[in-house]
């Protein structure tokens, strides 16, 4: 069973194709990076996985459950590029709401929130409203929400965006820790040096087509950095 399985997915906006027959498998327990230049179709693909959009053709399954069923999202943690929620919520209130929506309650919810606040070093912000926080602190709150709930697949859309160097380091540690716990992580990012360090697999998407899928190890063994490999693939196609 794959964590995410995308078969023959097509999506167009009017006459413009955003994705052409995309096939992709994200294996359980692995970290996969989806790389691509701006406008490649990365965000569209993430939206399709989360059923925020509907594909014109093809099937997407999450742990063998079609993505159009709400149960497919029962073990998913998601954070968009810019985490945003209603400004009157406190940091703790956000985590309580997210935890409840993911099926947690009582002591489990409380202990997971305490743990998430502590992991992200935002315990002292827990009673502050989002409107009083900096962008980085709001993004950390979003990251903390990934630690609340029984997830086995995490989908991160440009997770390093808006984080300071300490936040980036914390995020990398979280990703590594989640992987050590056997969780699957699917993320897209432009920061290739970071991806090279933390990912097992990569998929390169350009103009709506998957140009490459394989392991980071195989790329590095070929004597190229991920950045050089990516540049070569994308510029060849262009």
């Amino acid at each position, binding site marked *: 069973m794959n964590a995410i399985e995308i078969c023959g997915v097509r999506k167009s906006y009017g006459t413009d194709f955003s994705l052409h027959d995309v096939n992709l498998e994200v294996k359980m327990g692995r970290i996969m990076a989806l790389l691509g230049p701006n406008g490649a179709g990365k965000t569209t693909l993430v939206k399709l996985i989360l059923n*925020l959009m*509907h594909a014109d053709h093809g099937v997407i399954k999450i742990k063998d459950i079609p993505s159009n069923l709400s149960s497919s*999202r029962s073990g998913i943690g998601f954070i*968009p590029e810019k985490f945003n929620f209603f400004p009157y919520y406190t940091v703790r209130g956000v985590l309580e709401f*997210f935890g409840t929506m993911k099926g947690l309650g009582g002591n489990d919810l409380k202990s997971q929130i305490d743990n998430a606040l502590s992991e992200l070093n935002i315990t002292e912000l827990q009673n502050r409203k989002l409107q009083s926080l900096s962008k980085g602190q709001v993004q950390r709150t979003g990251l903390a929400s990934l630690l609340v709930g029984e997830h086995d697949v995490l989908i991160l859309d440009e997770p390093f965006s808006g984080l300071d160097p300490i936040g980036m380091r914390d995020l990398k540690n979280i990703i590594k820790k989640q992987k050590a716990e056997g969780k699957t992580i699917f993320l897209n990012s432009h920061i290739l040096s970071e991806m090279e360090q933390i990912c097992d697999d990569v998929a390169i998407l350009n103009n709506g087509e998957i140009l490459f899928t394989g392991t980071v190890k195989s790329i590095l063994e070929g004597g190229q950095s991920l950045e050089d490999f990516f540049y070569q693939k994308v510029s060849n196609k262009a």
Partner: protein
Amino acid sequence: MTTMYKAQWKAMIRDTILKELRSKTLVFIFIATTLMIFLCHALLKLFISSNQGTAPMITGANSLSIMFTMINAWSVIIAGIFGISSIRSDFKDKIIYQYLSFPISRTQYMFSRILGTWILVYSYYLYSYFLSAILFSVATHSWAFHTAHLISMLLMGLYVFLIIFISFLYSMVAGKIGAFLLLISSVAVISISSSSMRVLAYSEYLKDLTLFKVIGLLVYLFLPRVNYLTELASNVLSKEEITLNIGLESLHLFVTTAFFLFLADQLVKRKNF
């Protein structure tokens, strides 16, 4: 219903109420309504004291009925405003992505937003009624509460729910102002077509067809005649004879509403965010 499912419903409804309670419009409406009720109370007292012995019999119950008609009309606008904003604010800054990434269906999302808004608007409605009832009882030294008000309130509860639902439906396809204009026009068109078509016999429906008559007929036959509830509530309040065919009107309202609920559900399910 599993515990998780119940907790999600509760959290979503609470979230909707919390969101709307922050609205400046609600604060303004709340203050304006309270002031208006106190003003009506003062005017009523003034009228009674300046017409001692000469004025027709004014009781708490009949003065409250007049006030109640005003509150009913005002509640439609409020239901429309909050029905529309219940989902439009989720589109702002793409917050809706967070909601739809939770393991809940879009149908659950839609109904929790509608129910949360209904609870808030209906609470406002009940507040207006009870404040008026207390003040009018004091002003007239008579008991303002009446069984007819209770029946009318229940009918208006259903009406407010339908208005919120229609507003929600329009807000899926139009912006804030567009959805509000669509709502007001729909309510007006439904009301006009009902009053013109109801007086006709079935055999007259297809006679002398004009463009306006065709539109009126289509609206009358296929759209939920929500105005039926306000008319019935008004009949009950004024203790007038009810001339409406309650069985037929209720059946029509039930069937057309069920169809539009199905349509809204399909629209929400198919929408790309």
